[in-house]
């Protein structure tokens, strides 16, 4: 996944798009090492010392990793699932609508 996400961030650099992570490693040092080793270019929340059982994954009812949720400019959910390619297509479609002057593709 890392290379796909990295190039997505690069490609969308000048667009109204943000890739935000919720890192679910228990140990934040491990997450930071992954960021350094893989040159990850996006900002992540840390889910806390309980990792996958931390408050953010719990509040979002996440049960499998990775899970991707795509939100439009108004915070409305357009995709939730595990398919990086499908999520990317949805996100690019929304960015296209935003750029065309829509309100973020909200329903």
């Amino acid at each position, binding site marked *: 996944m890392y290379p796909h996400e990295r190039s997505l961030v690069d490609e969308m650099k000048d667009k109204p798009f*943000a890739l935000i992570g919720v890192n679910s*490693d228990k140990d934040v040092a491990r997450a930071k090492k992954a960021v350094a080793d893989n040159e990850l270019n996006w900002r992540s*929340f840390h889910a806390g010392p309980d990792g996958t059982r931390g408050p953010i994954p719990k509040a979002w009812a996440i049960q499998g990793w*990775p899970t991707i949720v795509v939100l439009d400019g108004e915070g409305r959910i357009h995709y*939730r699932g595990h398919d990086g390619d499908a999520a990317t297509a949805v996100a690019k479609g929304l960015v296209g609508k935003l750029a065309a002057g829509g309100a973020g593709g909200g329903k």
Partner: protein
Amino acid sequence: MRTITTWALPLMLASALAAQQRPPQPTPKSPAAAERYAALQDEQKKLIDEYMTKAKAVMAEAEAAKKAGKPIPAMPMRPDTSALGKQALAAAKEASDGDDAVPFLLMAIGADRAGAAESFALLGEKYADHEATAQVGRLIGFLPRIVGEDKAPAIAAKFVKSRHPDVRGWAVFAQHEKTIETADRESDLYQGAKSELIKAAELASNAELKDSIREAIDTREKFGAGNVAPDIEGADLDGVAFKLSDYRGKVVFLDFWGDW
């Protein structure tokens, strides 16, 4: 959404196998079958114990190698219990009733991946109503991966007709899970699946099944397409506070990830 990663399925099968070692597992009622079952259980225990001894030794070696900066040895392969599974299936076929057959079939499913299709088919065909069959209910949702896409629907259909509320509940859940995840929430398809699942959860007694159904519906209705996502107020990996709502106005690709 209830998913398992690729490594989780062998793990689940392994734990089904390990569960054979723990009471209260159903055991055959007739003395002859019970004796045969106990012999297979002993053999299984021996294989697992041997593996655990080996695995512990390798883990200790790996720990030492890591400290010394040397290459880490590979973990030993999981024990091959397929022969044991085949014997269990043979015993199940000879059994005269469900009380004798189902324990052998549960053992066969856990021990012999390649033979799991035949064991599952027999379980569905003859013993879908049996109390002990509920123990593998959770696996009904994973039938396509255990027995293959081609054979799964026919086997799953047997469990849907089960008179045991937990067996039937797991099968109905497997049948409708995708609909709950993806169908249009206003559609008759979604509404029908939802009411059937709620009914199945009410009738079921297994807590894991009840929770799984409730979670699947909740997840969809709170986090399905069209809902406004809750905000996240947290801190980044350097401890700097920020909020998801800081990114309003942009499309957000929110990625729950971990480096494991």
